[in-house]
């Protein structure tokens, strides 16, 4: 009756991932947001290792290693450096207050779970039931990007959306082909560098990182 132990662990990791997605959505401080992003990477790493161990897909060990290096160490370190260089430790502004954002988040989760249910009934993998959580964490990261005014939290939302996609790939098809995975990893890394340069340019032009200012760039 009971699921095998690795399937239970995968379910637990999926639940943790959902919890972290909500914690990011409700977080007010930028430094804590970066730490949460690192934790999300760590849970993703653990999940990939468990899937690899449980199903015997050895190529997943490599992608777990990439996750560990890139999403737990390198990207959070880069973001941390950026935040200190830009001197933004202050509170993050949100468009609407946090409890309402949470309620919207619950609605998104219900939507995602309903969406995933018919798909996962056809899937054969042992991790199929976590697809709903993967879709939910993609949508929640998307919600976070919409709700934040400042550039840095938006970029963190973007990166955590990529984490959600990676989780979806692991849970439905035991990961993407190695070439694709390497390509995405490189893209994310380069993307973060470019975002970093953009931050400095935006701040130079407007003296703030508020994205709303970009609307003033229109020329008549």
């Amino acid at each position, binding site marked *: *009756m*009971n*699921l095998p132990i690795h399937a*239970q*662990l995968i*379910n*637990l990791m*999926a*639940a943790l991932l*959902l*919890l972290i997605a*909500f914690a990011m959505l*409700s977080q007010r401080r930028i430094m804590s947001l970066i730490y949460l992003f690192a934790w999300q990477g760590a849970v993703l790493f653990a999940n990939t290792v468990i899937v690899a161990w449980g199903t015997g897909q050895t190529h997943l060990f490599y992608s777990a290693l990439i996750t560990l290096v890139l999403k737990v160490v390198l990207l959070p370190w880069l973001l941390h450096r950026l935040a200190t260089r830009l001197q933004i430790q202050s509170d993050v502004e949100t468009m609407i207050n*946090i*409890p309402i954002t*949470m309620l919207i*988040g*619950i609605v998104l*989760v*219900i939507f995602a*779970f309903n969406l*995933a*249910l018919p798909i996962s009934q056809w899937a054969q993998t042992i991790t199929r*039931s*976590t697809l*709903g*959580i993967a879709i939910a964490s993609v949508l929640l990261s998307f919600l976070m990007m919409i709700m934040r005014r400042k550039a840095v939290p938006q970029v963190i939302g973007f990166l955590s959306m990529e984490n959600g996609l990676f989780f979806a790939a692991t849970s439905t098809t035991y990961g993407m082909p190695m070439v694709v995975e390497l390509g995405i990893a490189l893209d994310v890394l380069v993307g973060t560098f470019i975002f970093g340069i953009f931050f400095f340019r935006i701040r130079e032009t407007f003296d703030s990182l508020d994205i709303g200012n970009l609307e003033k760039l229109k020329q008549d």
Partner: protein
Amino acid sequence: MIEPVLSQLFQTLLAVLVAPLMLGWINNCRAWLQNKSAPGILQPYRTLRKLFHKDAVLAHNASSLFRNAPYLNFGCMVLAASIVPVVETNLPFAHAADAIALVGIFALARVFMALAAMDIGTAFGSLGARREMLVAFLAEPALLMVLFTPALISQSTSLNTMVETLAQREVALSPGLAYAAVAFVMVLLAENARIPIDNPSTHLELTMIHEAMILEYSARHLALIEWASAMKLMIYCAIGIAVFMPWGIAAAGNWPTLPIATIALVVKLIFAGAGLALLETVSAKLRIFRAPEFLGMAFLLGVLGMLTHFLLERS
């Protein structure tokens, strides 16, 4: 015929008499953790004895509602203590109410306390009552959501069935129950006026919630209220134990296992008390306007627990 009545009496008396001891244990742990000298584990009994020996003072404009509310409050808690399977399942009273009715009993007690606080007409009374109702109306749906996850697993809202199903289940990691357990601890802290929401040992007017509400009570009325809140804390711990770690609770009419069940309960309560004291020591009191956010988080976790149970465990 007489046996169920006896075991019911045993459980209710145990819950009523042990409750102040539990409070004393929590206070002691807190004092140790904060490097203070502890008042002794029996201190709540001494306070109760002192209060029962004093003469009650009532305001001139106090109505009968004000005088009767403490008895009603105490009665509600005794009833709740006889419904929750603390040491034994399938007691005669247990069929009287399910988890939802239990939440209703707590609400009944609270409504009367809030009305009594407003009865005298002092500023503090109505302030405390308003704040208490603010916390309560947010905590109640969260508590219901928390109880729905085990109810879904056991296909019943009766606490009895929940305990029996969960205790006999194979041990498995259940993300749904884990979410519910975290949310339950948050609700427990809020409903029992513990630290992130309210400080039980404060007498600073601007921050207190529960204390402001009972400021006008003295002597035996105050003693009953203090005893009832100790019982409420104990009952919440017992609900948490019954739902999230039900191992060791005796089945109905099974006399030989009763001592084991009692010992298991005491051990679990000791751990729960120490855990509560630790939680209260490491966290700071929230501003009152952050309370909705705290309880909103508890509600969210409760709902997530239910949803993840649907998604991950229903196969």
